[in-house]
């Protein structure tokens, strides 16, 4: 009973955190009146305190404002890349699942090869081909996440295509495309939605990782990975410069995972 309560409390905290971070991304002005780009040579590397709850960085910029404004970049890349991977994954996965055996076999071997590599490695490879930049980071992370979505969408398609209602629709002479759109796709979306919720966390980490390496947006853009990188050599003197962006990245990823897992359990429970 107690454990259940703790789990629920954790879920609520995680959900609230996600809501807060989303709000930061959408309306950063609600959280701070300060400009994340405004420097102040008299306020360099101030520790957290009144006026600067997260302290200031090497050029006197308010870390709280930078973290708040950074949410839109980091969440934007995470959500954008995940959404793109989801859409493309569903389309490709469904088509592959409905395609003749030969095509399916070839496509899936390709996907399996991609799955054999860690996602971050694929993202790095994509960046190496595309070149650095914020848009390319989103693309690279999306490409890296794609194989998993294709695989799940295809598996769901295989299950659904043999179900009674699909057989019935086909028996009634409904056009195959219409069958795919109105019967197959909706049924693959639910499990994919759950994966995507957890996947947002992974893509945010991957995007922040690429930015940390200097491959994403550039200073003075307040992106979380970049902020973390900017503080990495100051850990001994000014821990707050790296600490708060790190907390935000960790908090967002953990929250997304907690919420995603809860959704998955809910989905599994319903199905069995």
């Amino acid at each position, binding site marked *: 009973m107690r454990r259940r309560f703790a789990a629920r409390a954790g879920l609520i905290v995680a959900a609230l955190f996600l809501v807060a971070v989303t709000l930061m991304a959408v309306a950063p002005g609600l959280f701070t009146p300060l400009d994340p*780009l*405004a*420097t102040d*040579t*008299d306020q*360099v590397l101030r520790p957290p305190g009144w006026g600067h709850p997260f302290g200031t960085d*090497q*050029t*006197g*910029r308010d870390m709280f404002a930078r973290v708040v404004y950074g949410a839109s970049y980091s969440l934007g890349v995470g959500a954008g890349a995940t959404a793109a991977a989801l859409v493309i994954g569903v389309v490709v996965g469904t088509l592959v699942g409905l395609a003749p055996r030969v095509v399916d076999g070839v496509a899936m071997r390709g996907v399996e090869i991609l799955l054999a590599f860690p996602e971050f490695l694929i993202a790095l490879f994509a960046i190496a081909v595309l*070149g*650095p930049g914020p848009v390319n980071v989103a693309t690279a992370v999306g490409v890296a996440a794609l194989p998993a979505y294709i695989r799940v969408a295809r598996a769901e398609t295989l299950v659904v295509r043999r179900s009674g209602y699909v057989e019935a629709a086909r028996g009634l002479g409904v056009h195959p495309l219409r069958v795919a759109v109105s019967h197959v796709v909706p049924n693959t979306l639910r499990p994919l939605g759950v994966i995507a919720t957890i996947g947002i966390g992974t893509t945010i980490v991957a995007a922040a990782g690429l930015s940390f390496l*200097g491959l994403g947006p*550039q*200073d*003075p853009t307040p992106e979380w990975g970049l902020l973390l990188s*900017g503080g*990495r*050599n*100051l*850990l*001994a*003197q000014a821990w707050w410069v790296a600490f708060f962006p790190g907390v935000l990245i960790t908090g967002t990823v953990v929250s997304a995972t907690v919420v995603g897992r809860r959704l998955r359990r809910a989905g599994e429970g319903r199905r069995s």
Partner: protein
Amino acid sequence: MFSRHRPFRIAGSLALVTAAALVLAGCSTPAGSGEKTEGGTITFGVDVDPVGHLDVHSSQLDINAILQRPVFDSLVSQNADGTIVPWLATSWQVSDDGLQYTFDLRDDVTFSDGEKFDAAAVKANFDHIVDPATESAQASSLIGGEYYAGTDVIDDSTVRVNFSQPYAPFLANAASVELGFYSPKVLAEHADELKAGGPGISVGSGPFILSEYTPGSELVYTKNPDYNWAPEGAAAQGPATIDELDVKILPESSVRTSALTSGQVDVIGDTAPSSLGQIGDGFTVTSTESPGVPYSLYLNVTRPVFSDVEVRKAFAGGFDLDAAVKAVFAGSYQRAYSILGPTTPDSYDAALETSASFDADAANDALDAAGWSERDSDGYRTKNGERLSARWISYTPVNEDNANLANLIQDGLKKIGFEVVHDQLEPGAYLDAYLAGDYDLTDWGFLSADADVLRSHLGTGGYQNASHLSDPEIDATLASAVATTDASQRAELYTQLQQWNAENAVIVPLYVPEYILASSKKVGGVEVDIHGWPLFSGAYVTK
């Protein structure tokens, strides 16, 4: 030579740069707390591995000059006060017309592979430097570039270097590691492997022998037991005291600092100014201001925005440089007032230190007067509907401190309505933009122990002339300065150039970089040269 703030050289021209002279009898770190011992190992942590650039004759990397100094000797050596002392050459004569330098060589010097050092070895090395196949920009510039007219062997121990016109920086340049000597056998048999370097390839006559090289990780040097030809007057004569020098590649500055404070390494180089507080009093810290052109902004005078001298001056005086440098470097580095660093021999004009100052009102007035009087919705100035905006290109990776400084400059200029767009470009993209002249300003610092470095930065067609300046009077002043051997006359000419730039704001000097060396008190006798780079021939471990 390029400072660490921009470790590459614009490709192409073989135009002349100058001297990176080396001071052997520089300041020495105070002895450690314990007694000096014979033998032992010193570990030295550095930021970059010069992988693929280990050839002293073609590399442009400062780190390579630092890491090859233990292995390669030069004809002469330069003291801290600029005087030149004998090293592998015992004496020399300069002809009255300044066109011929004749060196008398030591006859007891051998390379570590047993080859003899003689006049033929000098000629083989200098021929190698100017051979187009070597693709040398740095060393071939130091040897005189187009002024260099060949080397003659007079006899076994006499060699003559010829020039087509007087070239005053040569003697100081001859002290640099770039004009150091390979074993002629290596030049004959391994010429195509010099850039890769390593044991058996990087073979000189120095106090240490490179005995192991693991790219990206470690270089191990063992002492040359036969060494007995140190520069005249050097504290350490004869073989090195330590048996072994281990260089560890530690790219992150915080990692180097922690490696020093935890005792994993004895000495670290390129120490971050911000980490000095963490290092504390238990260590010996030597900061040396870099000679040459300070870290500066180069305003492209051929572009509309900076063709107007009043706009350039408003730009230079429109942000609070004092406060910015103080904020970024926490008082460790000094702001620059001139286009030459204070430690550049026989040239620095200290009078400029009282002239430059931040004045937002004056900058605003000047921009109004220049016609940039309207403002757009973002608060930037406009003229005829066009925004007052400058494109700043930087070569990546941009050092963290420079990135912070750039932010402060951008933000400061925004307050007077001057937009600066800072594009940090990948090396390839940077080079494209640079060579096409598609930028309003760019940035770097350029290490050099001779003021002739200004010739490549301000002279017409100079390959570091990012400002695209072309002024016959400036060219004439630069040309007479390089041909003048009289120190006070040279200083007078370089003073004129520095004052001219202060009035014309073509180059905007920002700060004087320093090489910060930090070492544990367990070691002593580590000397530094004019750049602040460590010399280990007299270093020892204490009990």
